[in-house]
């Protein structure tokens, strides 16, 4: 079997990976872009609007996703994992990758959604963060790229309905994983982050009180492709009138052994607050904070704007929550602004969950050590010289794989990684 060769392997098809791949491809390098989910786009594709300009997130990500899909220099592999990487001297990496079986022939699938309609199995939709169900055979989300159905075999009951309705005969229950080796000259890690799981912090009552949701769920509710077509309380489907944000949920917490700040929660909460005031003009929004970290370009102004719009910022965090029978959450807190003890009722509590490391990628390097920091983020070994360098020469890191970052920084860093990879390829490509 002849091995394919690429100039660069980009692991992770979120906005960082897409941007790195596009920049390298524009320079004329051949890029292999690998994404483990069935669609590229990562977390950004699921956001509503982005701070501080309130641009619509999909207006930024969709064109980039499409050009990554169509770029003649980019080979895109979705639903694909990197299993093993061996470094064979400078400028040479051997990579073992596995394409997971989709059970749907992507060439034949026309994204007609007939199979989705026919499928009788409903499971929670991970792309809607459990706010809605999806079928066992499904197209990941509205703006997925590539827009092809995937069969989730774990939940499939093999009823064959999809096969019967598929007009192109794309369904293949006998599909098998494909494993093969490729050679690449350099690697960019854009593996991103995972969201903090609020179940680890039972005091927030996530999972116990229905009207306690995460900020990512709120992001979906606010987005134009919202699962409910509106902002509704999960408990009774009513419109929330008083909403609380708890910042630093899963960040700056030594009890969780994770003292880092997640960098974006303050800003996305302020953004969501502004959007909420737009969507629900009569609603009151409270943000409970320790320090408001509005540090980027235009962020402080955005924070002041939210204050002027009437978002209530309260220095002081609650930690005692109670639920009334109608689902209202009773919150006790100390208000430093008024120097008062308060007990307040909220229709909806949003946990501004933090960004946690996704350091699994370190394991795939078999004969070289990818250093992680003590919390699991990929370590930058030359912070003040060449910040995108990792402990392995020729392997670069982009975006949130090396620590929490906002979108502009992620995109800038993706380009920086591309530039370092390009230099490395030029130096060592034989």
């Amino acid at each position, binding site marked *: 079997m002849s091995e394919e060769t690429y100039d660069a392997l980009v692991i992770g098809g979120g906005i960082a990976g897409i941007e790195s791949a596009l920049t390298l491809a524009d320079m004329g390098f051949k890029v292999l872009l690998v994404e483990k989910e069935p669609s590229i786009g990562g977390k950004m594709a699921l956001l509503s609007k982005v701070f501080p300009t309130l641009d619509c997130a999909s207006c930024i990500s969709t064109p980039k996703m499409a050009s990554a899909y169509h770029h003649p220099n980019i080979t895109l592999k979705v639903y694909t994992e990197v299993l093993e990487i061996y470094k064979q001297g400078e400028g040479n990496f051997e990579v073992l990758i596995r394409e997971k079986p989709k059970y749907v022939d992507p060439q034949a699938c026309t994204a007609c959604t007939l199979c989705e309609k026919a499928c009788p199995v409903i499971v929670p939709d991970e792309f809607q963060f459990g706010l809605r169900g999806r079928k066992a055979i499904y197209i990941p989300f509205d703006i997925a790229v590539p827009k092809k159905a995937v069969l989730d075999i774990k939940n499939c009951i093999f009823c064959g309905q999809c096969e019967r309705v598929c007009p192109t005969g794309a369904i293949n229950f006998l599909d098998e994983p494909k494993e093969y080796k490729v050679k690449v000259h350099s690697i960019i890690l854009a593996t991103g982050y995972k969201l903090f799981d609020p179940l680890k912090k039972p005091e927030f009552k996530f999972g116990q009180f229905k009207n306690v949701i995460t900020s990512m769920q709120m992001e979906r509710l606010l987005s134009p492709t919202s699962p409910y077509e509106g902002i509704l309380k999960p408990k009774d489907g009513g419109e929330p009138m008083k909403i609380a944000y708890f910042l630093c949920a899963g960040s700056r917490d030594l009890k969780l052994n994770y003292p880092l700040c997640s960098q974006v929660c303050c800003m996305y909460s302020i953004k969501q607050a502004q959007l909420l005031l737009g969507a629900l003009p009569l609603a009151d929004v409270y943000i409970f904070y320790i320090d*408001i970290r509005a540090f980027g370009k235009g962020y402080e102004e955005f924070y002041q704007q939210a204050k002027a719009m009437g978002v209530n910022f309260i220095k002081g965090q609650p930690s005692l929550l109670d639920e009334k029978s109608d689902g209202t959450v009773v919150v006790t807190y100390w208000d430093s602004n008024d120097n008062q003890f308060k007990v307040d009722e909220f229709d909806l509590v949003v946990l501004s969950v933090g960004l946690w490391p996704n350091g699994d990628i370190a394991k795939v390097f078999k004969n070289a050590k990818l250093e992680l920091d003590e919390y699991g983020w990929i370590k930058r070994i030359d912070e003040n010289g060449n910040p995108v360098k990792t402990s392995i020469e020729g392997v670069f890191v982009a975006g949130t794989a090396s620590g929490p970052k906002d979108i502009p920084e992620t995109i800038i860093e993706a380009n920086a990684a591309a530039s370092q990879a390009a230099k490395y390829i030029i130096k060592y490509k034989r």
Partner: protein
Amino acid sequence: MSKFVERQRIGVYVCHCGGNISDYVDVKEVVNAVKDYPGVVLAKDFIFMCSDAGQKMIEEDIKKHNLDGVVVAACSPKLHEMTFRNVVTRAGLNPFLFYHVNIREQSSWAHRDRKYSTKKAISHVLAGIEYVKLASALEKIRMKAEKSVLIIGGGIAGIRAALDLSGMGINVVLVEKEPFLGGRTARIWRTHPNGKKGVDVVRGLINELKERDNVVILTNSEVTHVEGFVGNFKVKVHVNPRYVIKNHPRMKEAIDVCPVTVPDEFNYGLTTRKAIYYPYEGAYPELPVIDPKACTRCGECVKIVGDAIDLSQKPMDLEFKVGAIVVTTGFKPYEPKPGEFGYKEYGNVITLPVFDRLLDLSEGGNKLIYNGKEINSIAFIYCVGSRQIPNGSNGKVNEYCSRYCCNATIYRASQLKRKYPHIKQYHFYRDIRTYGLNELLYLKAGEEGAVFIKYPDEEPPKVYGEDGKLIVESKDVVLGGDTVRTKVDLVVLVVGMEPYDTKKISDILSISTGKGGFLQEAHPKLRPVETLKSGIYIAGTAQAPRTISETLISASAASAKAASMLIKGEIELEPRVARVDPEKCNLSKRCVEVCPTGAISFKEYEGLGTKAWVNEAMCIGCGACTAVCPTEAIQLNTLKTTQIKRMIEAAIKGLER
């Protein structure tokens, strides 16, 4: 322009999409409606046009029937426009003679009534046919580009960009206004995270730069004029004399012998230097400079090193051709107004950059001495010159957050603790913004005993003297507004960043500045290091306050973008640009007003005089000019005004069937 012949041999292909379209659109009806339409030689339907069989069919038809235009009516162009473009190209037809009509997302899926969706589909297909009839064959625009980049600013951002670009085989001209490279970073005492000195950070980068043979470094120089456009900029650089021409083994003696002493600006006047000097050990270029303002032309130094110094050296003006420009002009620290927190009023109120130099100069001992007095307690006041609240009377205020200061100060706090454990620290802050991984610094500084006191946004602390001591008095938010007073030996004002002379550079390059005077990117997320002017990139603190590593990252990113434009030595542009028919142009100049990139100017046409002209390298193809031209002289070549008009007429025919 030449008389255009309409395309007469168009093939129309209507896809069933396996029922996705045909269930709600009568595909046969669509084919029947268009097959006898003028200009159409054949119309076919097929179950899956995008399938191999469908593609082959189109390819063969083009060859067999000598088609000169193709319309495919299928799904959204986002999905398969590329596929069919490639099919058409494979068959030897220009890809711009193809039009993709959407009858799935915008017809069969949108409407449940077969009659209406069919009408709408026909309307779209007819419009598509009219488009193709008037379409012109287009090629990508290729232009030769200079494979070289001008970098303005020799701080770490400029050096990083120079390293990256030269490493990708692109020639670099690095222009620095000061006599030495390294910018503000060289003055930093210790940098996060490993306590490296600022000068060592700079030195590390410069050592790498020394190995490059495709970088021209011009210090003591300024860019005075820039003209041209992406790929072909003409740049004028004014080089001020250094007076020291080459190195000499006795150069040190020559410096020692200089009789002039002036305050050393590198150390903010904490020390003095000679008229001939190096700012610090190991500064680059490794050649001292003579400060013409301080030098008395006494000639003492010349006596020692002879022709290594030429006091009669004249300034030079150089000219370069470059393909792109990276602007990394950096920042300047905010200078507090006299009286602001006791600044200039009390001797022991200094700013953070000065404090940094003080720490660096005190490296040797274990006591920190300022103004002849030992320092045992320090109060840091945050947000000086940042997050200022406009109140209508105080003129220009910096509303933005300067981003680096919390991290920098808190890192200093830890380093200070390590070196001078006895010094008590009080930090008066509004919000501690040690974002991301920097939070560890805050945690550490706290663990080590730094006291943090949050003051209210509207009521900053007061600084005043009492019995020869400085008092900082502030309200404490945590204690519900109680007043806290502390006696300290030194007050350090944590000053923010202000853009450095961006007005001047933005005028020379005609790029824009945004809020606070920082250079404005084209789009914070889509094009974060590009400006609206193609070929000009920005990085580092000239764009926004940043830390060292963020500055380096943005410089690398700007290099990547500049390189992807120039690396092939030619620029490839999409053919979607506006063009002027000089015969029709009546010089209304409305196009010039509406053009977002300044691509339209005027040019002499033979026999026609001065008429509008589009610089294709600068045109982004928005078409706004075509909407305002009174004579329709300017046209987008992928979507001409006549095309749109004919499409409108055709579309209504479809709906009215």
